[in-house]
């Protein structure tokens, strides 16, 4: 079985490190993937705010293309970005559940010779790693266990809501179990799925910054050394606005924010460059993990 891969627009700009590390990890684990040919933007939250027919049609084009590209009975489409994951999943479910939506969208698609039959299963990389590949198999490949590293896993909102998929909608544990398998110490905290405000940091900044401050402070209070995310927008908000939050609210937050695939890569023994670590504002200090005997101290 081959997975199809839907990168999404963010993974080509602000979230580039996510794509680099994800592809490197998939390669290291020998999970075969193929990029969806000529994919288009999923529409995110903006399209649904403007025009619903267009929002569904935009996402449905990707689903129809995925069906064309894969001969499998169920097409597994990996969408790493939370917004893409949700929009594709929502479109897929609504086309199945509401006949009027399905009729209207398929009439639109038929005009250009596309049709969606309902064969696509939208998957998140976390789900693929933990439920398809298996934690035992990952643990077997760990070269540098993340010993003593306290990790706060932040899932964000749209990966676990509103549909019941691979985890609980308010208290998910998939990423924490993955961290444990990599040898790290998951930090138990209650704001795992609390919204980061999404694009509010660019529009109504005061509201956006406050939401991020809450997340950062809680993770620090619980003793996290690093926060992991699985969404390019969450990562951008939490990392890039940290300085501004410190200035405005007179805080002293200093928390590295990385993608979960980056830390996975570190544990699997991949190099800094392959994982896009140089793209982070604050590199996590992991030299004690990658070089346990202290031979090269300056590597990270």
């Amino acid at each position, binding site marked *: 079985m081959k997975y199809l891969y839907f990168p999404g627009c963010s993974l080509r700009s602000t979230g580039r490190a996510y794509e680099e590390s994800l592809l490197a990890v998939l390669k290291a684990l020998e999970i075969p993937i193929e990029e969806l040919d000529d994919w288009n933007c999923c529409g995110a939250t903006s399209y649904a705010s403007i025009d619903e027919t267009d929002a569904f049609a935009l996402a449905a*084009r990707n689903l129809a293309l995925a069906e064309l590209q894969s001969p499998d009975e169920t097409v597994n489409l990996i969408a790493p970005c939370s917004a893409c994951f949700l929009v594709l999943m929502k479109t897929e479910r609504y086309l199945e559940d509401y006949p009027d939506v399905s009729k209207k969208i398929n009439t639109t698609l038929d005009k250009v010779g596309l049709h969606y039959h309902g064969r696509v299963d939208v998957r998140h990389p976390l789900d693929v790693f933990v439920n398809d590949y298996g934690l035992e198999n990952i643990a077997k490949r760990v070269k540098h266990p993340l010993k003593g590293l306290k990790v706060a896993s932040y899932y964000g909102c749209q990966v676990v809501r509103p549909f019941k998929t691979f985890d609980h909608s308010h208290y998910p544990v998939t990423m924490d179990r993955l961290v444990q398998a990599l040898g790290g110490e998951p930090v138990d905290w209650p704001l795992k799925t609390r919204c980061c405000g999404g694009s509010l940091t660019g529009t*109504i900044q005061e509201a956006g910054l406050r939401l991020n401050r809450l997340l950062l402070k809680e993770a620090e209070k619980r003793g996290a050394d690093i926060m992991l995310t699985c969404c390019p927008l969450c990562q951008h908000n939490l990392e890039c606005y940290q300085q501004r939050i410190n200035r405005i609210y007179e805080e002293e937050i200093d928390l590295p924010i990385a993608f979960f695939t980056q830390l996975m890569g570190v544990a699997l023994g991949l190099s800094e460059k392959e994982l896009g670590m140089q793209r982070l504002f604050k590199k996590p200090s992991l030299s004690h993990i990658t070089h346990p005997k202290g031979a090269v101290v300056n590597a990270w």
Partner: protein
Amino acid sequence: MQLPIPQTVRADEPTHKIEKMKNVVRRIKFESELDLEFGERIADKAYGQRLLSCIQCGTCSATCPLAHYMDYTPRKIIAMTREGFKEEVLNSLTIWLCASCYSCTVQCPRQIHITDVMYTLKREAILMGFYPRRLPIPVLAREFYKRVLKDGRNTESWLLISLYLRTNPFKMLRESVLGFKLFVRGRLTIGKERVKGRDQLHSILKHEKGGNTI
């Protein structure tokens, strides 16, 4: 028995007190001023005839991370929608502040798709011309919409530039330091991402006016 004269304004009161009276505004709408079918119309569109079965428990407002910035909490929006307060609902900041985190939707004991209701209200607001022109949130949505309509993909750098140009160009200067930091790390691209099958995409997306609901 003679009733005591009430301590309010009488005809022989000094004029400045009567002036004050003139500023008194009616706080309650008459039924004739409401759009009584508004609730049903929205419920029909928002995958939830369930909207009308709201029990006003307030779980949505309690779970909403942005409720303290909203002019009406989500619970109030639902009540007002149902009762037909069309102008107030469509003019509110609430519908635009909703960041679609779906927290209310999964918690609602009546299984109302509240996030979808908010989306429907946003589209309705655009359609009816209640579009708050100075608020950056709908501007961002509009710019995003236009960008994807044109190229099939979104390039974040260009999206942000057009957002700031249309709302607050000075903000662009303030954000330029962050932009530069992202740029040197290869996280902001200048070249635009484009889809090959743009013609195909354009014939799928034809509702350029927006506000369309299935």
